[in-house]
């Protein structure tokens, strides 16, 4: 039986098995974080154009109120995460490094912080384009970490017919458990959001893919699925990067996204469970995205867990609440495989932050000496895209970027970091590839 299950496991080839480190937070229910005295809402916390502020310094804002509007289609609006007064609209530090224009709100301590901007709408009777507009109006972006505007993702070019909506509940990054908790605690929101998304893209069916280290989530969802059978939930092998769009599509449907193509070329749209749950929660009430679930974990915090965090909460406040000891070798936004290390705790939690990890030097290890490639082939056996990272690495060191792209499929690299993860010579392969790709992008521009 176990053996059968093992062989029948849906998966992709290659990939790696990092230690999961999810026990510390997976069983902890989502808790609400109190309001920080000051919120910083960046106007650019998504991929695309920054939003345009609609409020002025000194103006009072109510929690949930629209404070910045989308600038065109490739943009999303921002809503006030708390009731207070606009203190400043200026450049503030951001997790990405450069300072970004942000609306700073001084929160009223005495306020009841009720959301007063409800405008309920009957989403089931809206036509697809109206739903796309409603999604944009909610300010929703991909909550899995990409922060790509959700309405853009749902707006499939008319020539592509979509047969399946893939719902990504893999959460393959170590430490992170936000999607896990959302699947358990917001199951109905998730199913509602899934229905909306299916309607928008015109998909007849939806498959929710969940890694098989979260069987409780699979069962919880399965028990609440609508009777029509159009939505199903499937367990997939627990393996990194199962949660990458390409890998999950292959695991669930046996299809491959063509090189250089998009998922809609094969009739598929992928959305993250957190995003769809937020959609199912926000749209019927006509609300904007003002909070999100964040996993705070790692050896450096004494109260790890999943927190519902108002967007714009400074990290220092969040970590203080989670029992940050004050010393850490590294603080990472996102997961340890693809997340970014940050230099300052004065940056805010934005819409794309799925986790804050406070890692000790024990967890990340001593800095390693880089050796020449010993051609061990580990990276080749790990790369889920079946590239040759060893060869690409040698070319990158010689700055042969064009050759990398033309003959070695550099552009297909999904920057998952499996190659760097396994490399015994500690060559920063994926970092090389990120640089190579951005150089090529710049040259093309």
């Amino acid at each position: 039986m176990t053996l059968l299950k093992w062989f029948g496991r849906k998966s992709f080839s290659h990939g790696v098995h990092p230690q999961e480190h999810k026990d510390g937070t997976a069983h902890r229910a989502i808790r609400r974080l109190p309001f920080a005295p000051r919120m910083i809402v960046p106007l650019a916390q998504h991929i695309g154009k920054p939003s345009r502020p609609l409020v002025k310094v000194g103006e009072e804002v109510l929690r949930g109120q629209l404070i910045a509007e989308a600038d065109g289609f490739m943009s999303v609006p921002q809503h006030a995460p708390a009731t207070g007064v606009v203190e400043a609209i200026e450049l503030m530090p951001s997790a990405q490094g450069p300072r970004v224009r942000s609306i700073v709100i001084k929160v009223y301590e005495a306020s009841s912080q009720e959301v007063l901007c409800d405008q309920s709408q009957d989403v089931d009777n809206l036509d697809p384009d109206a739903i796309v507009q409603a999604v944009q109006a909610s300010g929703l972006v991909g909550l899995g970490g990409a922060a790509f505007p959700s309405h853009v993702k749902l707006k499939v070019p008319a020539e592509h017919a979509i047969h399946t909506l893939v719902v990504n509940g893999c959460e393959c990054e170590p430490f992170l458990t936000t999607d896990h908790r959302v699947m358990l605690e917001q199951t109905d929101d998730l199913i509602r959001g899934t229905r909306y998304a299916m309607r928008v893209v015109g998909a007849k069916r939806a498959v929710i893919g969940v890694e098989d280290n979260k069987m409780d989530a699979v069962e919880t969802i399965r028990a609440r699925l609508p009777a029509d059978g159009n939505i199903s939930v499937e367990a997939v092998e627990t393996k990194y990067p199962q949660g990458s769009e390409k890998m999950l599509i292959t695991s669930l449907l046996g299809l491959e996204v063509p090189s250089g193509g998009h998922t809609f070329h094969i009739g598929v749209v992928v959305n993250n469970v957190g995003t769809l749950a937020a959609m199912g929660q926000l749209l019927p009430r006509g609300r904007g995205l003002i909070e999100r679930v964040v996993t705070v974990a790692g050896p450096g915090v004494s109260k790890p867990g999943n927190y519902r965090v108002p967007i714009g909460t400074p990290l220092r406040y969040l970590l203080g609440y989670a029992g940050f000891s004050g010393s850490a070798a590294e603080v990472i936004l996102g997961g340890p495989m693809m997340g970014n290390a940050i230099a300052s705790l004065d940056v805010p939690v934005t819409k794309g932050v799925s986790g804050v990890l406070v890692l000790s030097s024990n967890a990340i290890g001593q800095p390693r000496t880089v050796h020449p490639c010993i051609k061990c082939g580990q990276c080749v056996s790990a790369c889920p895209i079946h590239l040759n990272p060893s060869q690409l690495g040698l070319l990158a060191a010689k700055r042969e970027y064009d050759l990398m792209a033309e003959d070695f499929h550099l552009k297909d690299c999904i920057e998952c970091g499996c190659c760097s993860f396994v490399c015994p010579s500690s060559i920063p392969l994926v970092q090389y590839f990120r640089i190579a790709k951005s150089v090529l992008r710049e040259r093309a521009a």
Partner: protein
Amino acid sequence: MSKPQPTIELRTSPHIKSAPTVEQIMRNVVFALLPISAFAVYEFGISALALILTVTGSCLLTEHLFNRAGEKPNSLRDWSAAITGLLLALTLPPGFPLWMGVVAGFVAIALGKVLFGGLGFNVFNPALVGRAFVQAAFPVAITTWTPPLAPGRFLEFIPSTLTAPFMTPPSVAAWSHHAVDAFSGATPLGLWKFQGIVVSTSDLFTGMSAGSAGETSALLILVCGAYLAARRMMDWRIPAAMLGTAALTALAFRLFGGSHYPTPLFVLFSGGLMLGALFMATDMVASPLTPLGVWIYGAVMGFITVIIRYFGGLPEGVMYAILLGNALSPLIALITQPRVYGARRERSKP
């Protein structure tokens, strides 16, 4: 800022790494070779000890001197030169003159490694380059064998060991005969090939036979190799493919060619096949990168080993088989490159 900022590091993702590092792998290979070296010393006495120390020392010194000359960082700490030295020593006859051992070690590092650009760039296994060189340069010394477990082996050097440079080594025959009665001066493979005598498989398995210092005990080599494979520091597929193919080839000859061909077990446990398959063919740098390529590479070497043994002029073919495999490895890697995800088989070029 009033409050001192906690020091946090900025690294790029991935922020976690899977063990092991190059140093750890190489160090463990050295550890795995130590029992084999110890057994060589037990079997062949102080001559083997002196040989192992001399050859390894020569490799380390050569690497160090080239580092100094090229103003490169110290690469001794990656342990790869030590592995080359140990492996090389273990493939030499126990009574090999020490000065020739120095030459072998120098050539292995200088020609086999530095010339190609150092660790990671060598095309061939450096130890085998050194071995091939001395095989050509000193054909007599490299085929002069001594019996195992000779009494007095811990007190007395084998006479050839201490030969002065460029002098003809004294004959070992007299010493061997006085040490062990009726030692014919041949390895099991040589005995089989030139005299038709077959040494018992169990003697081969445990190592009670003449041969290169570290090649005699198949059992010990298997155990040490299994340790590395279990720690995921050696690619078990290469020896599996190589030994499997060698055994199958031998079986085919015996079944269809007649019983004067040795049994597959004899083929597996004699000569340098075990040491070569587990410790030399698995040299990561000189083996193909691709999962399928690894199997082909092993199979090619196993097949060639048997063919050279049966039809070549020499009783042993492992060294040339592996060198050939090394030379073919980039080609094997190229043709077994897996299809890139989402790409069509043939590269679509406009």
